[in-house]
């Protein structure tokens, strides 16, 4: 499996996710600068990482969504290449139109940085194949704009097609308003595209993918990608 991580000016989780990927893949990950459009042809996975691309100017992710490399990422994604978009990456791919909806300012207006619990809602994608529906994961978040919004028709379509990958929940897996850290509609923390080849999520699986970091709940995502795409 060959993976690459896009680096925008202001990305700051690019190296963390490269380390997490390398642990599971066993070989180095390619880093692609945002102005490069010459993406290796044999890539299996592109990661759009977290951070503050372009200083969050205009709207989070809006500038990065139109950078040269994203046009190429979009083209490849439409051909079925896997795209994992985390945090600011999720904001970028929604702005780019790869996933529906938008990430708005948190309901409480504050930047929230803490571990949250996620209920797994899908195990039918290359990202989630090693989880079981109903599993409860502990994964950190760190964002001020993670409040997922989409119109009712879009939400219904996402639910009908089983494209909500993760929801914020209590430690026991209950979907409650108290367990919702940012006001996301229906506690949505991550969504898939129709082909289940693009996953966007606000929580950071790369931040708990190693025992030394205090947890490994995120690691199964990288291992699932390796098994599926190897």
């Amino acid at each position, binding site marked *: 499996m060959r993976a690459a991580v896009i680096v925008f000016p202001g990305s700051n989780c690019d190296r963390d996710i490269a380390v997490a990927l390398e642990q599971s893949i066993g070989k180095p990950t390619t880093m692609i600068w945002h102005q490069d459009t010459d993406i290796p042809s044999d890539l299996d996975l592109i990661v759009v990482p977290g951070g503050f691309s372009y200083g969050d100017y*205009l*709207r989070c992710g*809006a500038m990065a969504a*139109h950078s040269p490399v994203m046009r190429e990422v979009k083209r490849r994604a439409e051909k079925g290449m896997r795209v994992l978009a985390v945090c600011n990456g999720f904001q970028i791919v929604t*702005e780019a139109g790869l996933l*529906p*909806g*938008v990430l*708005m*300012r*948190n*309901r*409480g*207006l504050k930047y929230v940085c803490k571990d949250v619990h996620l209920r797994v809602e899908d195990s039918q994608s290359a990202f989630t194949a090693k989880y079981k529906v109903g599993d409860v994961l502990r994964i950190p978040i760190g964002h001020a704009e993670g*409040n997922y*919004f*989409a*119109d009712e028709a879009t939400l219904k379509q996402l639910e009908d097609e089983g494209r909500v990958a993760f929801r914020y929940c209590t430690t026991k897996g209950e979907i409650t308003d108290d367990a919702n850290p940012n*006001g996301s509609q229906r506690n949505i923390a991550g969504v898939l595209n129709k082909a289940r080849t693009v996953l966007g999520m606000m929580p950071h699986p790369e931040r708990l993918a190693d025992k030394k970091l205090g947890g490994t709940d995120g690691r199964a995502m990288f291992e699932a990608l390796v098994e599926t795409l190897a």
Partner: protein
Amino acid sequence: MKAKVHITLKNGVLDPQGKAVEHALHGLGFPDVGGVRQGKYIEVDLPKQKDKTQAKADVEKMCKALLANTVIENFSVEVVD
């Protein structure tokens, strides 16, 4: 020619920043404030453009492509000399 662009949240989209400003205004002794919605104002200079209709059409295209996110935002464009 210059375009003045107002970007506002659509009705029904929760505006937590506007809500916070509303509460602050109440606290500062303006009890009559019934609601605050926060938006953006952008000026786009078009020094070469002579045609107002064309300028408006161009800036509306810019709004759809980048300046506004039409999932949650409305925009209005006013062109002035």
